[in-house]
């Protein structure tokens, strides 16, 4: 039998020209918090599962806490100068995805983010943070505007997912998400995305293809919401806590996988207990990463510097995945 090697998320970039088809990931397939290994699945003690499940579910609940700072809470503090821009110039304006021009730490930026409400009335106005195609097409317009004016793009991710409804399908929210991914992958300005609460599926990723992807300590990011995962796996949404643990959706999981770049610490008890401390942490992280990315753009000839940023962005996502291959 030939040796099997695995490729994990975000290892050192593969030089394609050398045709090295596989590299070993230095990240373990199953880390310390991964309690279900292939061979021993049937023999795990129930209380261990329960501990992890409880811990993950607690994070899910904090990530969804209504008093947690939401996108506009961050923008208000981080960007005292902010002009919200509306509309996709095609069909409508989506209040579940907000964006606009802003100043951050002395530089002009474009900010985008899904916006949840704090009570029922707000949540209805914001559609519970679930964008429709119009939201993603507004985001597309603003991304392109950011590029036109050389403004870095800052994205706040906080959504259970794109809105699953008749209108979303009629105007193809899938197409809207896909087009955003296409444009983000080649947008000629630095992009930083931060998951501040829930990062639900393609509806989150649509503003998450970035040079830096960060997550708050108690945020989650997943291919499907815990409830949807439980529905798919066991046709029982009530098993969401088990699904949450099974699917490995915490910031810590994703950092271990190399999918995200950094976990930003929250105050004890969670971000909702101290908004200003949380926002200060975000300010520092945004500022630090932006400064690094901007410094990269100052190196050498401008077009080459941008090409280099885009190449790094491509490689970042290019290397995400785990597979086996006989060499």
């Amino acid at each position, binding site marked *: 039998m030939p040796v099997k090697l695995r490729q994990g998320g975000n290892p050192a970039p593969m030089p*394609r020209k050398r045709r090295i088809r596989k590299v070993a990931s230095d990240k373990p*397939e199953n880390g310390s918090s*991964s309690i279900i*290994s292939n061979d021993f699945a049937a023999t795990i003690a129930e209380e261990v599962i329960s501990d992890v499940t409880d811990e993950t579910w607690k994070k899910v609940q904090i990530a969804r806490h209504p008093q947690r700072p939401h996108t506009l809470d961050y923008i208000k503090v981080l960007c005292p100068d902010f002009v919200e821009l509306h509309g996709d110039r095609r069909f409508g304006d989506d209040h579940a995805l907000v964006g606009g021009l802003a100043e951050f730490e002395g530089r002009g930026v474009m900010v985008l983010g899904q916006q949840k409400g704090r009570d029922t009335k707000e949540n209805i106005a914001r559609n519970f943070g679930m964008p429709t195609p119009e939201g993603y097409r507004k985001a597309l317009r603003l991304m392109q505007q950011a590029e036109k004016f050389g403004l870095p793009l800052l994205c706040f991710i906080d959504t259970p997912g794109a809105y*699953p*409804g008749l209108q979303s399908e009629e105007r193809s929210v899938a197409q809207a998400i896909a087009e955003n991914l296409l444009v983000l992958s080649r947008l000629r300005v630095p992009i930083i995305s931060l998951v501040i609460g829930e990062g639900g599926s393609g509806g989150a990723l649509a503003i998450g293809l970035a040079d830096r992807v960060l997550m708050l300590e108690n945020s989650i990011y997943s291919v499907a919401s815990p409830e949807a995962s439980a529905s798919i796996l066991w046709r029982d949404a009530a098993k969401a806590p088990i699904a949450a643990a099974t699917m490995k959706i915490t910031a810590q999981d994703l950092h271990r996988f190399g999918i995200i770049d950094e976990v930003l610490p929250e105050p004890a008890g969670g971000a909702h207990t101290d908004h200003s401390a949380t926002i200060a942490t975000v300010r520092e992280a945004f500022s630090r990463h932006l400064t690094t990315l901007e410094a990269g753009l100052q190196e050498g000839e401008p077009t080459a510097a941008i090409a280099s940023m885009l190449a790094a962005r491509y490689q970042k996502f*290019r290397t995400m995945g*785990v597979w086996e291959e006989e060499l």
Partner: protein
Amino acid sequence: MKQNANVPVVKGKDHHFFKRKSLSNAIAPQRELENDIWVKCPKCNELTYTKEHQKSFKVCQKCDYHYRLRWNDRVAAILDEGSWVEINAGVKTGDPLGFANEGEVYPQKIVQTRRKAGINEALVTGYGTVDGQPLAVAIADFAFLGASMGSVFGEKLVRLIEFCIERRMPLLTVSASGGARMHEGIYSLMQMAKTTAALALLGEAGLPHFSLLTDPCYGGVTASYAMVADVILAEPGAMVGFAGPRVIEQTTRQKLPAGFQTAEFLLEHGMVDRVVARKELHSTVGLLMRLLNRRESAQEKGVLLTIPLRQNEEMRYAG
């Protein structure tokens, strides 16, 4: 989504309508071949001889139902006979999460699925020709875990796109999918970014991407590479969407209209270029290639390009 078990493998060259058939090898398990005399249309219950069924590209002659095709039938329906070459077949499923579901362990499930489906993963990639013109093709096979998109699916598609850029070859993706591969969690989600980013490079290289949407196509596949194409084709009656009808009805309590999420619905809503009958597929793709691939054919002939690319070609490949 109902899954169609009735997908007998095309066996021979014994009929004249089926000139482009070129199966790489017999991949179907014996079990299926044994019942392979009649097929019964899932839509109108019409019985058709297998031979006739194959002649008609597995389209019901009574109600026009387009049966779901296995990857090798798709190759036969699109490419010139004998031109198909598969690549990267050896990329196999990993287990990034150490996924177990009520005692069912993911690697075991994969082993069983491989055996049943006769392929290593849900996406089969390779290249061939259409009317002699080279074309790279990626085919999602719904028989492999509902053509869910995981790491291997994404990796094989990206390798094919990079292959297209190196060889200056256009790309056809044939999509079907039940959604993301749940067992690979966040890695599955990231395949949306990975595949679409590669398509952006294909576009900058001035190479066309044709997307064919087949029944059923949902979730992350629809919301990534499949909807980012220069020309989007769909098979008649194919169900295509982001969220499934059941989820939408449960979440919104909306009454969904007749024909919701069919290929025809998408055409009416401006999301696909053409709904193409299966028997027209080969000729349509061939014509599109001729029309969009003039730059390449001009280069081959040593003719000066009329119009340079907008994008800097040096930047087309980020690796």
